[in-house]
């Protein structure tokens, strides 16, 4: 049974650093739409992009992305 999904704290991490989606997008080398899609759970980022986001936020990967139940709200 695959009832787990990728959850993220991207919005919180961004707010803590006073960064806009566009700022983070430039830092991670993607467009703002990619960041928005990840934040809203419409896209699961590749490992490469997840690592780039973690590097841009200077935070460990597991504080930004984690596994959680598919039905729970973030």
């Amino acid at each position: 049974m695959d009832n787990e999904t990728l959850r993220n704290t991207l919005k919180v991490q961004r707010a803590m650093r006073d960064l806009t989606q566009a700022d983070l997008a430039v830092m991670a080398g993607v467009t703002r739409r990619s960041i928005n899609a990840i934040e809203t759970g419409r896209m699961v980022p590749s490992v490469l992009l997840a690592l780039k986001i973690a590097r841009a936020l200077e935070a460990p990967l597991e504080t930004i992305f984690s596994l959680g139940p598919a039905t729970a709200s973030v």
Partner: protein
Amino acid sequence: MTYIVPMNQQLEDSTELFLRFSRRNMFILLVVVLLLGAAALAVMLTPSGRSWRIASQAALLPVAIAIIAATLSSYRGRSWNPDAPEVKLVMNDEWRRTNMLRASRTALIVVLVAQWPLALLFGFYMSLPSPRQASAMAASSLTLGLATLLALFLFLDRE
């Protein structure tokens, strides 16, 4: 740091501009594909009708292609330079690539599923001779596939 912020702002603005540029081009391509597909089908299905006269104006095609190419290559004074960093960023964007992959998978399924109804339509219902039936199926499959790909991509990639 004071130099990085304006540069980032500039890159953000350029990226947004090229995203809109890309979406506009996709929309123009969708319209062109639908028009060409409809024209091709009209020519194939009514060979003795008015559409043959339209097809005889094929000399105008290079002019139309030049106008379309000129329209696609610039947007608000900016040209599409594949080596520009913002264009590379847009083209390699993960969300865009994901959407293109989803759209291409769906377009392939649509084309495959449509073969049986198209064969019935052109072969049995319209009773076209074999060469015209094959041509009509090819034109309709191409139009259907490309239109599905572009329309679905534009839908998935919306804000």
